[in-house]
């Protein structure tokens, strides 16, 4: 047979290779090398980490392709990059420069308030954020080959990531116990494609890999998310906004591998220096929240 590229198995498969790993936000080649050296399984190339996007305000867009290419040259691990929700031309540009994964991300300012990108149209795989099972299955229906919780990016407050992970995991548990005749109503009530609802019931999990993101700042946060049932962790501002990025990055990598071993978690949590200055996500005004972007 002819070799086939860009298949669903290929797209989902790369995310499966990232499982049990940490994907770190980096803004230049130097940070990318620190992340790789610390054991990151991939990096997310972007011009500003979410904490700075929040502080700066204004419109946040796809990063300069030249900056992303420099990061791709600097490391041997996969490189992801973000495009705005619904901005399929930013996605075409990122695909053409050869990024390994695109994050259609609420951290950037949405380009379309009604439609997400039809991700099946691309050869490059996409990751998208979700707050609940319906949102996850809508994105997978559009072709997302990997999911992550939205959490509340750039806060260093894990509470929203916990809320979203518990919501998805709880819904899967509920679906597993349902009769087949209850599935259509469930699909309707959650705005989720029926075929995918059925698939989740059969698999007992999402049909794609599901990571935590949005507010993870410490090894304990990362292990908490793993114990709640995610497959791996994104850390955005939490590493390079902390006192000792290399040490914290290594500690979070170790905490994701040994997430069930409290004595190792205690060891890696020692003397990490200052964590990023947090912002309390629960008390944040609605307009400042990123998780409400997209549907």
């Amino acid at each position: 047979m002819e070799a086939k590229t860009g298949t669903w198995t290929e797209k989902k498969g790369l995310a499966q290779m990232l499982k049990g790993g940490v994907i770190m936000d980096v803004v230049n080649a130097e940070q990318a090398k620190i992340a790789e050296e610390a054991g990151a399984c991939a990096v997310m190339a972007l011009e500003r980490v979410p904490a700075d996007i929040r502080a700066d305000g204004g419109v946040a867009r796809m990063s300069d392709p030249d900056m992303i290419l420099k990061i791709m040259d600097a490391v041997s691990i996969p490189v992801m990059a973000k495009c705005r929700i619904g901005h399929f031309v930013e996605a075409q540009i990122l695909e053409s420069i050869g990024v390994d994964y695109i994050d259609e991300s609420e951290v950037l300012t949405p380009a379309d308030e009604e439609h997400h990108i039809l991700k099946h149209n691309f050869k490059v795989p996409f990751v998208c954020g979700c707050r609940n099972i319906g949102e996850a299955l809508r994105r997978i229906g559009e072709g997302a080959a990997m999911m992550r919780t939205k959490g509340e990016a750039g806060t260093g407050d894990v509470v929203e990531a916990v809320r979203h992970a518990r919501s998805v995991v709880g819904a899967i548990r509920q679906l597993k116990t349902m009769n087949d005749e209850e599935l259509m109503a469930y699909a309707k009530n959650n705005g989720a494609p029926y075929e995918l609802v059925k698939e989740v019931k059969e698999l007992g999990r999402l049909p794609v890999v599901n990571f935590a993101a949005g507010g993870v700042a410490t090894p304990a946060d990362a292990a908490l998310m793993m114990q709640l049932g995610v497959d791996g962790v994104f850390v955005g501002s939490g590493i390079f906004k902390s006192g000792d990025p290399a040490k914290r990055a290594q500690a979070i990598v170790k905490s994701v591998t040994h997430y069930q071993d409290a004595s190792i978690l205690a060891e890696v949590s020692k003397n990490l220096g200052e964590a990023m200055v947090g912002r309390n996500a629960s008390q944040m005004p609605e307009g400042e929240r990123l998780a409400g972007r997209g549907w």
Partner: protein
Amino acid sequence: MKIGVLALQGDFSEHITMLKKLGVETVEVRLPKHLAGLNGLIIPGGESTTIGKLAVAYELMEPLREFGKEHAIWGTCAGAIFLSKDIGRDQPLLGLMDIKVQRNAFGRQVDSFETDLEIDELYKATGTEHPYHAVFIRAPIIESVSGSTKILSALADGRIVAAQQGRLLATSFHPELTGDTRFHEYFISLAS
């Protein structure tokens, strides 16, 4: 029969699912003590740099080398890189197999591909003759083999994608991502 799967990072749970289908007892290996009593070990796909660094940090390098002298080990993709002697760059390697490997040999993710392979050894071992459907993801190739290592499979252009040296096995592709259990059956026969 008890097979361990190195569970530092990567798709170890996919290998465990395949082994369970075949009725094999499995163990997730994260620390040297987890190697006790195993008949064989699978090193999964993932990021070889991440797996190597964690193996160094948790003092697994020497125990894994010792284990490989006596037992079967199979590395898929990142695992094949980790088993090799030489990859032309500096990162932790077990150096158990006489193979030279090139990482990301086909390019980036958009170049990742699926294709069918003819693997005579596998046909013989499993009494089958239909092609093996292989999934390559940012895959390495085995540039060359030496010593007692034999080539199990190559692409039409001659690039080597599977090799075996005694009870050590390396594949650039991911049998754990398919429903075809023949490679896992073959490995279990090496571990017995």
